[in-house]
């Protein structure tokens, strides 16, 4: 038995360098189609690479935004800049609180914001966070906190991708990646926003089936940690549900219960803009995302609410 345990330990220890080498070779040699659990896409969808690069150079801001694509496609810093409020959008594709926690601590807190705005679309709190973890890993310089974030999703893909990212970062000059400002229909706007070429959503050809969204405990914990971290640094916290199309909204069967959860989080203000704005389909370009007309309408109301609730503009002046 002692021999069995000893040999098992040796085999396991020798596996560590072997599998790291194997992952590197797998990623370098095999075509993308065979890289099922290795999904390393620096400069991919959502302009996160450029956003994080900008976050390191921008200096202090008034407002930091976290959230999914509803955040980085729905909250435009230019609207706030007109009122001399500097806003930086740290949203990313399918971002869940697990990634939000990492991004806020690493990139958001150093910007010393007065207000943390978290866009809360319930699906992201019900998600395992794997898609977002891969996006963040692919567009960040690997570090220990990023590795911890990768492990929190309890999925092999972020782990494998992190190992590969570590190798690529040390060999191929990841930090010199040149991500184009304009990618197909999307344009990156300084401040972390991504503007989509104007389109209008015609509506869904079939009704979405309403389903209950069940929040994941680990996401709720990470979400509460972000808020606690902000409150500890005397940063005000506002929770915002960005407008979505009526089809999308009505597909969430338990939205009242979810609203109730967000409303009860202590030390925060919550506003569901679907209740106050009632935007029709022509304010969106797809069921989830506002087009620029929708963004400006939403942001105008958001700005008004922020000025009223937090007096950020007076501090800025």
């Amino acid at each position, binding site marked *: *038995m002692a*021999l*069995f345990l000893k*040999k*098992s330990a040796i*085999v396991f220890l*020798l*596996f560590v360098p*072997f*599998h790291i080498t*194997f*992952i590197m070779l*797998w990623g370098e040699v095999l075509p993308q*189609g*065979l*890289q*099922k*659990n*290795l999904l390393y896409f620096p400069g991919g969808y959502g302009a996160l690479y450029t956003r994080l690069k900008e976050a390191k150079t921008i200096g202090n801001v008034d407002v930091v935004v976290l959230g999914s694509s509803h955040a980085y496609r729905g909250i435009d810093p230019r609207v706030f800049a007109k009122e001399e409020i500097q806003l930086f959008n740290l949203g990313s594709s399918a971002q869940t609180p697990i990634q939000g926690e990492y991004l806020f601590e690493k990139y958001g807190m150093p910007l010393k914001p007065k207000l943390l705005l978290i866009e809360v679309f319930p699906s992201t709190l019900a998600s395992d966070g794997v898609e977002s973890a891969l996006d963040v890993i692919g567009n960040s310089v690997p570090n220990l906190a990023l590795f911890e974030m990768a492990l929190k999703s*309890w*999925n*092999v893909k972020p*782990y*494998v991708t992190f190992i590969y990212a570590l190798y690529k970062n040390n060999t191929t000059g990841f930090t010199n990646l040149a991500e184009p400002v304009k990618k197909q229909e999307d344009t990156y706007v300084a401040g972390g926003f991504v503007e989509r070429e104007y389109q209008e959503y015609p509506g869904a050809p079939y009704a979405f089936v309403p389903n209950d969204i069940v929040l994941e405990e680990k996401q709720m914990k990470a979400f509460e940690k972000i808020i606690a971290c902000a409150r500890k640094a005397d940063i005000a916290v506002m929770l915002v549900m960005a407008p979505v199309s009526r089809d999308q909204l009505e597909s969430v069967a338990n939205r009242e219960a979810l609203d109730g959860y967000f409303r009860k989080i202590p030390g925060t203000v919550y506003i569901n803009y679907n209740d106050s704005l009632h935007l029709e389909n022509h304010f969106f370009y797809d069921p989830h995302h506002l087009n620029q007309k929708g963004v400006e309408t939403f942001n105008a109301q958001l700005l008004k609410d922020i000025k009223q609730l937090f007096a950020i503009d007076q501090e800025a002046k």
Partner: protein
Amino acid sequence: MLFNSLQFAIFLPVVFGLFWLFFHRNTRLQNLFLLVVSYIFYGWWDWRFLFLIALSSIIDYSSGLGIDNSRSEKQRKAYLWLSLVSNLGMLGVFKYFNFFSHSLQDAFSTIGIELDAFTLDIVLPVGISFYTFQTLSYTIDVYRNQLKPTRDVIAFFAYVSFFPQLVAGPIERAINLLPQFYAPKKFSYPMALDGLRQILYGFFKKLVVADNCAVYVNQIFANYQEMSGLELTMGSVLFAFQIYGDFSGYSDIAIGTAKLFGFNLMTNFATPYFSRDIAEFWRRWHISLTTWFRDYVYIPLGGSRSGLERTIANTFIVFLVSGFWHGANWTFIVWGLLNALYFMPLLLRGKNRSHLNNIAENGFLPSFRELFGMVSTFALTCLAWVFFRAESVSLAIDYIGLMFGQGFFPKEGSLVDWNMGPVLFVFIFFDWLGRKSGFAQFVGTIRNTFLRRVVYYFILCMILLYGEFNETAFIYFQF
């Protein structure tokens, strides 16, 4: 608790550690420990299931003693019937009641009589088809005087509920497994190592082969009417690999886990897709079930000793019952019937025992004749698997019709994805290497330690880089 779950990844090392540190020296303690952990394992699904397995165990333990203590043949038979009725009764109620109710309703409906189907709203207990057959084999063997009944109630309960094989087999015979609970276990390094190898290969089959094939199979079967002939063919082939990887993977994990505790379970799969004819296939596929039906249904019915007509009838009965065992759906019965039809020509020509050795026994590559036999047998099984996978007989017939009737090549937006090709190639290669004794055992024969470890690491890396980790249940859990 699924084998491919975090809970099991914690459960197994803890149980292994406790067993070999504290419990293995005393037989009674050992069996009690295994019984408790097995009940925890099984109760993890639903604690209510424990009542049924306990009841089945009590009835069969008592029946075994009753048979042995009986003074007349009539009394012996009565105890046997008690065991048969209670086990098959449980199976009938939980698994088949609603099926019969709906089938009766449909049958009356065809003659214009509308009945309200009376159905039961009950959950099918995981593993019931397996452990009821396992306990039945005990009482039948005691009745046949092939086995002395045990008076060790803890050993018997532990035998019935032994967690590695409880929910999806192998369906162990009491003659093989029960005596292994009578003596304290001694740790065997080679056995434990062998067990680990088998567990590793089992996880490769489940996570890399079966669960990846499932992704395509589910899409193809859900949208089969829009698929080309090639995609539909691919669907049936991938399902063949899915069910083999899934079920034999589970068996490997079960057998390997048992070895960690010093127990030997029977082989359940012997590279069935390398079979040269359908008879050989049925000697290599789900061996514990097929031998169960042979010993407890086919032979008691007369087997092949009562003339050709009787042999044909018995063969059909066994295949149909085997199909029915798999599930309460006409698709499984048709699947069984199809396999019986495949078997008939061999039986009628007396060729059903032509291939008793391993393929390419004296070389590395098969002969052309063997290759032809292998490919055609595989094609026949793939066709039959369509019925096994489909939700209804009409869907299966439709699927097969489209497979041959639709345009063969896909139009735009095809689901045909050749990325599974290299994975399946590796799998077939591994299985080919292990065609005589199993791949895990084959790896154990590699003398060079470095090479052996490279193989382990390669498999582990394949699991990391290509495994599907969504905690998909094993297919046979639904049976």
